[in-house]
C-alpha cells in the first residue's frame, strides 16, 4: 500500500485534484462535522474501525486493503453523510485510479456501430471470391459436359438408348414439300418456331388465309415472313412453302399429310416431292432413328413421325440404326432395300453402302 500512497502523493503534486477543491478526506470529515457526528459514531455506522475512518479522513490508504474495499468504504461514508456519490467517487478514482480498468463497456458496442464498414467490406470481398470461383467452376463444367456428350454420342452409334430420344435434324435439307417434321417436345413447348427454307424455295401457298405481307420468295424479307408467321393462328394455318411453322401437333401433322391436290396447287412444291434418285427413307410409323454418313456431314437423329420421308445425303456408307424397322421403308434409286434381313427384334443396325 505504500505504493498507493506514493501514487496519491505524486498525483496531488502534479495537480490531479483541482486547486480550491478540498481533499477527499477533508470533504468527508467536514460533512461529518456539519452533522455533528463524532468519529466513533461514524465508524459504528459504517461498520469500520475508528482507525480506518481516521485514515479515510486523512487520505491515508497505506494500511487499507485492496482498492475495491476502500472505494466501497468511501461510498458508504459519503452516503451516510449524504454527499453526492458520483462526485465523491470520481474524486477517489482520480486519487487512486483503477489500473485494471476494463475497456469501456456498453451494451454490445461492436455490434451496434464499430466494424460495420469492415464487416461490409469483408462480406463484399467474400461474395466476390465465391462468385469468381463459381464462374470458374461453371466454365470448367461446361467444357467437361461438352466433351462428355461428344464421347457419348460417338459411342451411342453402337447402342440404342432405351428411351426414344426426342431430337431432330438440323443438318438435313427440307424434303420436297418444304416442311421439316419437328419433334413433339418442341412443338409442345413453343407455339411458333420458325426455320427458314433455302432461298430458292417455292412461292407461298395460295391457300393462306392469314394476312401475309407480300413476298418475292427471296431470303431478304425474312423479317416480314417471321412477323407474318407469328401473326397466324396455329390452328387455321396454311403455311408458305418457305417457312416451317411448328404449332400444335395436330395441325402440323395435318399439314404434313396434305392431299396431293393441295400439293398440286403449289406447283413447284408438288413437282419436287418424289425423289427417285438417291436413298429415300420413308417412315410409315413413328420411328427413332440415327443415321450418319461416313464424312460426318449428314446426320439424321431423333424420332421421325409416321408418314414422313427423308432423302439421305452426304457421303456413303451410312451407319443406320432404326428403332422401329417394321415401320420404315428404304429405297435406293427407286429399288426397295431389304430391311428385314438387318432387323433383330424390330431394331435394325447396319451399314448402308449403295
Amino acid at each position, binding site marked *: 500500500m505504500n505504493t498507493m500512497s506514493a501514487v496519491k502523493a505524486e498525483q496531488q503534486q502534479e495537480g490531479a485534484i483541482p486547486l480550491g477543491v478540498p481533499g477527499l478526506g477533508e470533504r468527508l470529515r467536514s460533512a461529518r462535522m456539519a452533522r455533528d457526528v463524532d468519529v466513533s459514531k461514524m465508524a459504528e455506522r459504517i461498520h469500520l474501525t475508528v482507525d480506518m475512518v481516521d485514515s479515510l479522513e486523512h487520505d491515508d490508504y497505506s494500511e487499507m486493503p485492496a482498492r*475495491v474495499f476502500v472505494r466501497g468504504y468511501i461510498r*458508504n461514508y459519503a452516503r451516510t453523510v449524504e454527499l453526492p456519490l458520483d462526485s465523491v467517487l470520481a474524486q477517489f478514482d482520480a486519487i487512486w485510479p483503477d489500473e485494471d480498468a476494463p475497456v469501456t*463497456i456498453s451494451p454490445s*458496442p*461492436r*455490434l451496434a456501430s464499430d466494424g460495420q464498414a469492415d464487416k461490409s467490406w469483408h462480406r463484399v470481398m467474400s461474395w466476390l471470391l465465391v462468385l469468381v470461383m463459381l464462374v470458374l467452376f461453371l466454365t470448367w463444367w461446361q467444357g467437361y459436359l461438352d466433351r462428355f456428350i461428344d464421347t457419348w454420342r460417338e459411342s451411342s452409334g453402337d447402342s440404342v438408348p432405351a428411351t426414344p430420344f426426342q431430337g431432330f435434324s438440323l443438318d438435313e435439307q427440307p424434303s420436297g414439300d418444304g416442311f421439316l417434321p419437328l419433334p413433339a417436345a418442341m412443338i409442345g413447348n413453343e407455339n411458333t418456331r420458325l426455320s427458314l427454307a433455302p432461298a430458292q424455295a417455292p412461292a407461298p401457298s395460295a391457300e393462306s388465309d392469314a394476312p401475309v405481307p407480300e413476298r418475292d420468295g427471296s431470303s431478304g424479307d425474312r423479317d416480314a415472313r417471321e412477323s407474318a408467321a407469328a401473326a397466324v393462328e396455329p390452328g387455321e394455318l396454311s403455311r408458305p412453302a418457305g417457312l416451317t411453322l411448328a404449332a400444335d401437333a395436330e395441325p402440323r401433322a395435318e399439314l404434313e399429310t396434305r392431299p396431293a391436290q393441295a400439293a398440286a396447287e403449289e406447283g413447284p412444291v408438288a413437282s419436287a416431292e418424289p425423289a427417285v434418285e438417291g436413298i429415300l427413307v420413308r417412315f410409315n410409323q413413328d420411328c427413332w432413328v440415327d443415321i450418319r454418313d461416313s464424312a460426318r456431314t449428314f446426320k439424321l437423329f431423333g424420332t421421325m413421325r409416321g408418314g414422313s420421308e427423308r432423302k439421305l445425303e452426304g457421303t456413303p456408307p451410312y451407319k443406320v440404326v432404326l428403332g422401329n424397322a417394321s415401320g420404315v421403308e428404304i429405297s435406293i434409286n427407286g429399288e426397295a432395300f431389304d430391311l428385314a434381313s438387318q432387323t433383330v427384334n424390330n431394331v435394325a443396325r447396319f451399314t448402308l453402302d449403295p
Partner: protein
Amino acid sequence: MFLRRIRGLFSNDLSIDLGTANTLIYARDQGIVLNEPSVVAIRHDRGRGGNKTVAAVGESAKKMLGRTPANITAIRPMKEGVIADFTVTEKMLQYFIHKVHESKIIRPSPRVLICVPCGSTQVERRAIKESAAGAGAREVYLIEEPMAAAIGAGLPVDEARGSMVLDIGGGTSEVAIISLNGIVYSNSVRIGGDKFDEAIINYIRRNYGTLIGEATAERIKQKIGSAYPGNEVLELEVKGRNLAEGIPRSFTMTSNEVLEALQEPLSGITDAVKKALEQTPPELGADVAERGIVLTGGGALLRDLDRLIEEETGLPVIIAEDPLTCVARGGGRALELMDERGGDAFTVE
C-alpha cells in the same frame, strides 16, 4: 480438430457469463463485447412435425416475452443458473459467438471459459460444456461464478487472506470465501432476480387482485425496488389485468410495498450469507469481518441491498464497481492468468 485449431487462430478467446437473465461475453483485449438477455424466440412452422427455427435471440427476443402469437415461443433456456433447454441454449450460444465474430470471414472456433454456479451438479456442468462445444468452441473451460466474480471485482484472491463475495444473479445467489486462489467455502441458493420478480407478481395478485407479467414485475423492481427502508418513498403506476373484473386496470405501487413483497427472497439471501459466515474458518472470518463483503451481480443493483446485509451481519458491505459485468470480466482475467501461468489455476474442469 486440426481445422478447429486453424480457425482458432482467427478467433478471440472468450469468457462467457451464461446467466439466467443476461449473457455477457468478454473478449480478450477488447472488453465486454456482448450483453444481451438470455432469451430465444422459436418459430414453429405450420403443420404437424413442422420445423422449428430461431426467430430472434437476445434483446429482440426479450421484447417478445409474453407477447408472442401461437407460432412463436419466447424461451429463457437457462433456469436457476443451469441449462433448462439444451438445444436452445446451444443455438443461443452459437448465435452470440458468431455475433462477436461478425466481421470474420472464417467460422469462429474460440477458446471459451464459461462461468457455472458453484452449486451446479456434474450433469449440469457437462451440459454447459457440451452446449458450448456444440456452438463451435474449440476448447471449453469452466470456472465457478464466485471465483470469477471475485477476480472481476478486483479482490486479492491470491493473497492468504479471506475475501467474501456475494454474487446475486438472475437465477442463483452465490456466496463464497476465497483465499489463495481457491474457494474455501461456497454456497449457492436458487434465489435471484427471477425470484424477486415472482415475489412482486405474487404480492400484487394477492393484495391488488391484479395479474402482471414478468416484464412489468422487472420494471417495478428496477424503478422502485428496495431492500431496506429508505428516507424517501418512491411511487410507480402499474397496469395489469384485474382478476375480478377481467379487464386491465392501473394502480400506484410504492417502494415500501415492493420492500414488503421482497422480504421472503431477501431473507433467503441474508440467511445464506449468515450461514457462510458461520461455516467460515475463524481466521478467514476475521479477515472478512475486518474488510467486509463484496456484492456483485445484477442483484447488487437493488436499492439498499448492501445496507440490508450490513444491518443483518454487522459487517461492511461493498458494491463492486460495475457489478453486472464482474463475472464476465473475471472470467476473462482468469483466461489471461491461465495463459500467463501455463496452467488452469481457476478452472474446475
